């Protein structure tokens, strides 16, 4: 930003060591996510899988996609879009459980609860 822009190299060159380190970590985490799928953590199963996926996604974003070295505004754009997806899913999930046929007794009797 400070030096004259003519013939200045734009962008950050990521060292090969970092690139291969990231790939190695991603491959190990892929193995881990397959391995932990064999264990039952009860309700935590989904969160363990999602946690690993978020970690892997962060590595791809930060290093492969240069976000670590990039203008912060680009990071804001992508983080906001992801936050909106999380918000969208969270609100939709809290909404869908409000429509159980037997949420209000006798209001919308389902076939299951009224075999006659």
């Amino acid at each position, binding site marked *: 930003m400070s030096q004259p*822009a003519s013939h200045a190299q734009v962008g950050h060159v990521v060292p*090969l060591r970092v690139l*291969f380190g990231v790939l190695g970590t991603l491959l190990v985490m892929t193995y881990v996510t397959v391995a932990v799928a064999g264990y039952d953590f009860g309700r935590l199963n989904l969160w363990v899988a999602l946690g690993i996926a978020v970690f*892997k996604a962060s590595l791809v974003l930060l290093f492969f996609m240069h976000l670590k070295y990039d203008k912060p505004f680009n990071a804001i754009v992508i983080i906001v879009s992801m936050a909106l997806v999380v918000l969208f899913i969270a609100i939709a999930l809290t909404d869908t459980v409000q429509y159980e046929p037997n949420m209000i007794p006798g209001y*919308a009797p389902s076939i299951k609860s009224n075999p006659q």
Partner: protein
Amino acid sequence: MSHEHPPYLQHHFDTPEQQFDAGKLGIWLFLATEILLFGGLFCAYAIYRANHPEIFIYAHKYLDRVLGGTNTVVLLCSSLTMAWAVRASQLGQRKLLIALLSLTLLGGFGFMGIKFVEYKAKWEHGLLPGTHFAPHDEHEAAVPAPPAAPQTTFKPSATGPAGTVRHDAEPDAGAASHGKRPSNVQIFFGIYFLMTGLHGLHVLVGMGAILWILVRSIKGHFGPEYFTPVDFVGLYWHLVDLIWIFLFPLLYLIS
């Protein structure tokens, strides 16, 4: 300004740096819309899985973990070669750039090839979405048809949670653990084909874009001063990888 400017600099930008930053913001905004596009499908996935976990527990066994895992590795490796290709173009290593882009493209072909094998197997077993769902593996023949829904004078006004699934068959939560097929399994395959299909379409588009920059790099268009298309195609390719990172555990590794 009287000084001549480089051929790649559009006249409405002052400097290559400004042009690069503007383009990069544009690409990130595009990637944000892509995340929102897939977000809708992830939401559909979340709603159906929350309401009918038995469908997902039962049906995910029909997906091949080995092929899915192999595809994850293929895509991760092609992400590395892409990131390395961006580095090569930044450093002006033309031959390395061409080799790495070719490898990335090869990774795309590998992914789509494995995807084809998976889709073909689903097709042959009748594991298709909606009304095309007609599984015919050997266990199915032994399972008797589900009993007809009990008659009632009540209209099922709220048909299923949020109206997602018809309520006429018993939503048997224990069915999956007994190996019996729960009702409405076709919903899983609808979600599977839509999510992996849209993702596969993105892989194809990415492969087209990589082919385009491969041809341009052979023509010698890129160097330390101008590597913008390589960088931006790379970002798109990494996003495709990013989405697969979530799709693989959510579809293949349900426990």
